[in-house]
């Protein structure tokens, strides 16, 4: 069964490019224009991975991640953060406190982003399969 990815960015062109790339790679892609729209999308269908922009109207990327981590149902969803911000974003703190797997700087390569997502979801699969085999 294809895995589901939620893309969240207020720039429609970035959203469209990433959506196009991931759909071509066989993922089911949901999109959201800001953090609140992303939470609504998650309520409808729980994604396997979330890629979110950092600076967005209404609810920004960091706010979204905080809400996700506060909810047990979404606390373990892997999150990648896209950002055009520079030095003021503390990558270590994001990883340590909010379990953000990676911070990808804009401009980014959709190809490289896809590779990274593939790797993360494959690792997740391996973990899930390992847990399953141990349970058996």
């Amino acid at each position, binding site marked *: 069964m294809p895995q589901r990815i939620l893309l969240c960015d207020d720039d429609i062109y*970035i959203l*469209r*490019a990433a959506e196009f790339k991931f759909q071509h790679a066989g993922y089911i892609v949901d999109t959201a224009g800001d953090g609140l729209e992303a939470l609504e999308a998650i309520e409808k269908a729980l994604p396997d991975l979330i890629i979110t922009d950092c600076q967005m*109207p209404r609810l920004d990327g960091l706010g979204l991640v905080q809400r996700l981590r506060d909810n047990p149902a979404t606390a373990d969803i892997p999150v990648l953060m896209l950002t055009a911000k520079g030095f*003021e974003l503390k990558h270590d703190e994001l990883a340590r406190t909010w379990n953000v797997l990676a911070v990808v700087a*804009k401009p980014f390569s959709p*190809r490289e982003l896809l590779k990274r997502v593939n790797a993360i979801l494959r690792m997740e699969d391996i973990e899930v399969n390992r847990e399953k085999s141990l349970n058996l």
Partner: protein
Amino acid sequence: MAKIGVRTSDLLALSAVVLGLIWPIGCEAALPVGFGSPALRLGFFVTGSLTAILFTLWWVRKFHRGRIAERHYLTSLCEMDPHEIWHDEGGTLLPPPSIGGPWSQVLEQVHQAFRDHGRQIQNLEQARSALEIRCRRATSEAAQIKGILSSLPEPILVADSYDELVMVNSSAEQLFQFDMQNVETRAAKSIIHCQKLVDLLLGTARHKSTERRNEDIEIADMEGHSHWYRATAARLSGENKATDERAESCGAVVVLRNIGEHKAVQKRNAEFVSSVSHEMKTPLAGIKAYVELLADGDAEDENTREEFLAVINGQADRLQRLVENLLNLARIEAGVVNVSKEPRSLNEILDEALSIVQPSAEAKSIALINDLSPMYLSVLIDRDMLLQAAINLLSNAIKYTPPGGSVTLRSRMEEGQVRFDVQDTGVGLSGDDCNRVFEKFYRVERNKEMAPGTGLGLPLAKHIVEDVHGGRLTVESTLGQGSTFSVELKI
């Protein structure tokens, strides 16, 4: 002990007496027996005796007159004010007795001693006067320095080598809320409630080097608001030894300069760089992503390829607009902008601006209402610049209007002027924001997350309208209901 002087005149007088006495005897003895008449002998005797008597009388009289003069001199000396004699440098008030008495030499020495003492006292008095003048000058200078220090807005604190404050100005008293005249202790660490500043001040007093030390220090006032100061501390080494490292320290002075504005500028600059880089990276990200999709052959059909190319083109335009905004603002501010004004149709330019911002309005589902005057509104303008200003005003309205809202562009002739308004149904501005929204890099804090921006669009529009075209750009706004930016241009 003083010797009694014997003058030549006295010797002569004495000789005359002796000669007078011995003359008759000598003559008597010298004449051969039987030589000379008794009358001659008597003559010799009488002459010699008279001479001796006369000389004796003369000498006695002279001696007596000398004694009188000396007595008179001593009486005058006793009656005179010693200060007068000491100050009588030329000896004119009481000249030394000229008539020789037996004590005249002693008196001359006394007189000389008086004059010497007089000179010494005069020197001492001159030194005392000079010292008094210096003392007065020093007191006046100290008062002057205190006055200057008090008038300075920068807090200044001076500590001695015993870690006690010895001088502070009123700005320092205000900052640290104390009154130097009424403090229980002058210990610097008890009065100054900023450990970093105490360490700097006392550390400088003990420091061997005479170099000034600078430190940026955050000091909280009594209400808890913190302010940034640049503290400059220098060691005090006594008079004329400020640069002598071997001279013993006698304390330190610290001057605090408020660098709040400087820090705010630094922060604004950092935010500006961050905003500009964010603004540039966003279209760049689009260009890079779509170019890669095309290069990887992900766009399989012609329509998709065209769509991607259009996006790349649009993002490149966006980038170009940003760079133009930056450059134009820099040029206008530097006064090196080339303005070419020509009579133009305002509506034509506003129509073009509307078509440029149309896609971004559509993307946010914002209705862009064209309410341009049917009249031909001719204005003397620089076409490119005014187009830029109109685009900036429209883009700003679209950015801060929530989806479903509307942005209206209206133009009309009014009181001999041409006017156009950009009216939105957006988030609106507070009174304070209305005053500051044309400041360079200023962004309304609560709206920052609503849309990215550099805080350059509105200042640039204002520069273009007011500085380049001599017009007026104003804003009226109600928080939560929307804003209207109005441009007035002379015909």
